């Protein structure tokens, strides 16, 4: 269970203060696909950042599977991101100068997975995204779709419980984007992880079990929650 309780996020101070999220309270199920939908500037990324432990709420509390995020110290928060989460970003953020192997191995290094176990894990992750051939290639030489698949391999390599994807198709043409989305859904099924996708795209949203509509920092409506809960 992912639960937000009276969560607000205010950027800046006093006169410059900007309320990006306002008093959000919601419970979202695990092992489901969740779309976060809204206009630009509505607060989708802010929501995802709070969920991903990259930022802390100004008020309220966030609880994931019994883990009270607001109470975690810096080290525990790093651990939470490194072990429980997988991130996929709009602009891929792969390290262009490094090989696909090294890109995917990064989370394993961060999580101190022993050197001798890494190779098999990385190879498995790359085969999931159909990039086995590219293991020695520099990430910079890949196409956009391949880069995003590489980023997905990096996100799943630690077998996280939750995958957070912020507009994963935003920089891709629609057919490549579809493939990436299908891949994310396939992997979600395979690992029965929770998949949270931030998107503008109604097609993508309609594929998800739950749709969370955000407007001006507040929840406008939620779809699929009852069905999912049943």
């Amino acid at each position: 269970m992912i639960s937000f309780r009276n969560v607000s996020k205010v950027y800046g101070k006093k006169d410059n203060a900007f309320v990006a999220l306002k008093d959000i309270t919601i419970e979202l199920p695990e092992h489901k696909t969740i779309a976060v939908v809204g206009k630009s500037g509505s607060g989708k990324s802010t929501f995802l950042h709070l969920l991903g432990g990259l930022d802390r709420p100004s008020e309220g509390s966030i609880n994931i599977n019994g883990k009270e995020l607001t109470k975690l110290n810096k080290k525990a928060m790093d651990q939470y991101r490194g072990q429980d989460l997988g991130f996929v970003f709009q602009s891929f953020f792969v390290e262009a100068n490094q090989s696909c192997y090294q890109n995917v191995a990064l989370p394993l290094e961060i999580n101190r997975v022993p050197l001798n176990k890494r190779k098999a894990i990385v190879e498995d992750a790359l085969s999931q995204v159909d990039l086995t051939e590219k293991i020695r290639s520099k990430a910079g030489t890949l196409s956009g779709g391949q880069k995003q698949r590489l980023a997905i391999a990096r996100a799943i390599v630690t077998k996280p419980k939750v995958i957070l994807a912020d507009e994963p198709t935003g920089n891709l043409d629609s057919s490549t984007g579809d493939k990436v989305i299908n891949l994310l859904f396939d992997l979600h099924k395979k690992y029965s992880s929770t998949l949270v996708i931030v998107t503008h795209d109604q097609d993508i949203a309609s594929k998800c079990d739950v749709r969370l509509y955000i407007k001006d920092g507040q929840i406008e409506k939620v779809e699929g929650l009852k069905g999912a809960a049943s």
Partner: protein
Amino acid sequence: MSWADIIKRSGRSLRQAKIRTLLTAAALAVGGFTLTATLAAANGAKAYGNKLVYTNFDPSSLIVAKSQDIFTSGPGSNKPQPYSSSYAALGDRGQQVKELDQNDLTALAKISGVASVFEQYTTSAQFITSPNSGKFTGSVEAFDPTISHQFTAGNLVNGNVPSGDVVLPQDYVSLLNFKSDQAAIGQTVSVQLRQIVGKTSVMNFKVVAVLAAPSTLIGGSSNTTLLLSAQDAQSAYDFVNQGTINYNRFLTATVRVVDGTNQAKLNAVQKAIQKAGYGAESAQNAQALITQIVNVLQIIILVFGLITLVASFFGVVNTQYISVLERTREIGLMKALGMSSRSVSKLFIVEAAWIGAIGAVIGSILAIIIGTLINPWISKKINFSGSNLLIFHWQQVLGLIVFLVIVSVVAGLLPARKASRLDPIEALRTE
């Protein structure tokens, strides 16, 4: 992230910015080169100084003079001084210098801790010759068994020269037409002495050993000094000097100290002699003087080396700042993926350490290679005869490398701090 991964990762980052890394390391290498060479030169100079002192000086004896200023400002004074009967003219310019006479020697012998007083009877010969050679200049002196001598041929049975024998400096072997150092042993050498009034006398000696050409600059005179038994040296001295005002007056005498290898006893006797109004100098004092000169020179060059290091320090700071800026997204990503601020900071510190290590190793290895190659040439050029000017101690080189690594680590601290404090959201926002 483990240290091994951090080290590998930072090494990879450096390889991706090869030129920048090498240029920054090059600046450090210049410092490393200068410092390595400076330390090596100082080592060489000190070793040479020690050699110089100990081949001319018995470390358990003291050199004593009528006054201490002979050792400090050199003999003679350029200002009028109150007259004393100790004064004697020295050299052609008529500088006045106080000399020791027999009374002084007796007084010195009575100082507690003094084993014996040994005057150096150096007597100029009119000429030195052998039965089938020309005539050459030279002098004679008593063999001092307390100084280390090196022979190229022959040897001394009881560690001293028997009466009637001579230790011949190597330069005379060919001059006196002996076929080799070995062939000179047992041959006769004649020394003609002449009194001021013109009366001459010839003394014949059998060559017992050939003295290796001294490796020292100070020892230059001993290239022309034949070493005799104390008794023969005394006879030669007496013949030339008896009846003159200089007879039995000495610029310096050697005082042997009881148990003089014990530094504390040597120092005590030195103090006592100085308290009695004489000048006294130990091998250590002479050595200290040389060491002091070397140290001063070394400090001057080290300061220049350190100045280049200051420049390279800022080079490292600059390079690392650029590195942090260039890799803002990478840092943001690593932090988003759960890398701790500490690990991020370590990553950049290790990177700086790599740069330092590369620069230091390049600099010191270049210094060692170049130094080793040009050592023979320098030694020849400045007449270092057999000694190396540049002596590399691996402990020093290692210490220097560690020092340079520390310098670059310190230089990398600020950029590393900046990297570790990056907010991942901000960092990932930069396009």
